[in-house]
């Protein structure tokens, strides 16, 4: 940044060159166009910001936070931090959800890398689920067709209401 120390006092004795009148008109038009565009965009920005802090948005995101917190607590009840975990790739959505839940604190491995546990998500519309989903654990090498070895516990989220749409 250019620092701006004291200039020599007074002007240099000459009036600033203002140019012909058409220049002033064009200059004014340029300023007006730029300002109108900026103000228009700013108003849209204000609308976006106001929408983002609405009570409805806040409630939806609180529900979203509660859902992910519920899944995380259930996963923690099944595997320890740092454990070698394989995620059941049965469905892309479930795989992605589980990776978000445990990817930061477990070592995700593939089938060939000797996992100590296989995690999966199952639909279960009972108490103890996170919005109808539970985290379950299968023994390594199991076929995943039978009942799971253990079911996640410690948290449930049976709240109603929709979750927010999460833009990609």
């Amino acid at each position, binding site marked *: 940044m250019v620092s701006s120390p004291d200039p020599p006092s007074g002007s240099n004795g000459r009036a600033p060159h203002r140019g012909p009148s058409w220049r002033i008109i064009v200059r004014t038009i*340029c300023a007006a166009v730029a300002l109108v565009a900026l103000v228009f965009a*700013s108003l849209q920005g204000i609308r976006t910001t106001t929408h983002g802090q609405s009570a409805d948005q806040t409630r939806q995101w609180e529900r979203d936070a509660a859902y992910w917190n519920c899944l995380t607590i259930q996963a923690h009840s099944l595997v320890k931090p740092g454990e070698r975990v394989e995620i059941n790739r049965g469905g892309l959505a479930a795989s992605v959800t589980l990776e978000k839940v445990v990817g930061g604190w477990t070592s995700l491995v593939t089938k060939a890398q000797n996992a100590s546990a296989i995690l999966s998500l199952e639909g279960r519309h009972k108490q103890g689920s996170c919005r109808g989903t539970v985290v379950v654990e299968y023994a390594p090498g199991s076929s995943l067709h039978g009942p799971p070895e253990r079911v996640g516990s410690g948290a449930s989220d049976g709240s109603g209401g929709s979750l927010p749409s999460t833009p990609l």
Partner: protein
Amino acid sequence: MLPALAIVGRSGATLPFAVLIGAIETGVAGSLSLAVAWSTLPWFLFIAIASSFLSSLVLIKDRRRIVASGEQRPRRNIRDRWPGAAAVTVLILTLIWCLLPLRAPSVGWDARAIWLLRSSWFAGGHNFLLASFRSPGSIIAHSSYPPLVSTSVAVTWQLTGDHTERVGVVVVAFLNAVATFATAWVIVEASRNLVGGQRRGKDRPLALIVGVVGAVLFTLATFKVFGPFSTNGYADPLWSVAAVGAIGYGLVLPTTKRNVGAAAILLAVSGLTKTEGTATAVVLVVLITLRYSSCASPSFLGGSAGSRWRWRAVAAGATGLVLLSVWPILARLEHATRDVNTSGQREGTWDSRTHVTVSAMAPYLHVLLVAAPLALVAGVVLRRHRERAGLGNDLWAWLGLLGGLSVIGASYITGPGNTAFWLYTSVHRTTMFAAIAAWLIVSIWAVVAIVPSEENAVARAPSRDTQLAGSRSL
């Protein structure tokens, strides 16, 4: 704070630059944690202490040079300081208002899948970090993405002991706001340059008011471009606005050591935040190097001095390019898992991919329909006003905008996979840079059109910050 003082000096944007330097230091610390040993926090503390020590040496040397040369430092009283303080306050209040959506605990898709997930890796120590980076079991974490956002969150988690996604999102939103402040300050500086940097004078209040209003409007327009991604933990706003800031300091404001230092900080932020930011930063480094190497005319500095300076500028640019390539090379050496977006079978022809890419980008770049004609007309009518203030030719900013946009467009066209899906999931974020750059161009022209410029404004603003360009505007 000391590195910021040594690089950009004292100004309204010194504190934001100090924060951004801290974020860069966490990125370097995270890289060392991955490459060598330890967790990110000890490396960060070591780097912060070392950089503060080196900066204090630079500041002391600078002070001694001033004393030895007998140069009088301008005395600044409260009357001189309050307009600048008021400008900073107005801009801070605007940014606080823009961050109010943080009241909703939103965590975006990518934030949870990539940025905050990787923060846990960086907070987990060398072995866990390395294993996670190489893990083929991880399909969404984009291991090879640059580290800055994740390492900033990781260091905050380690310092506060509060390892929550909420804290992570707040840290990222704070960085977005800080980078936006630093970029918006370009408009305030440009308006000050138009009145010759005068501290008192009839045009000074008008220039400051126009500069601050321009900066506030630019900030609000920028947050309109960010949309919900400003406060949900995404990295795109940060790299985009930092790259635009680099255009402002490196290609718009006068060619000075402090301005190029500020541009370097913002380029480092952009390059260490996301792959698109790295590619855009490379383009901007080349442009800034060209501008600075061409501004030191032999006639101004003398034949050998001009030639020497040109080589220094080229050497600095080359160093910047090498530093920007460190993370991609490190990620490859450490066998980071490849991104799903940048791997796989290529689909479609050149023509079809180009058509899809242009069609997908266009709806997010309507601002160019205002910025381009405005720049054309103003470039003809107001060129001399701009030159008198020492501001760079607007073509430099356009080259920066189009260069960054071209790199991103070329990635979609030449890259692997299905372009349509790739664009659907990302184009609204990858075009943020070009849109914000266009708003900066519009804001600068608004200021140039409104503030009456003084003749020989640059010559009237003697500065301790070496003016490299002389009175010639480039």
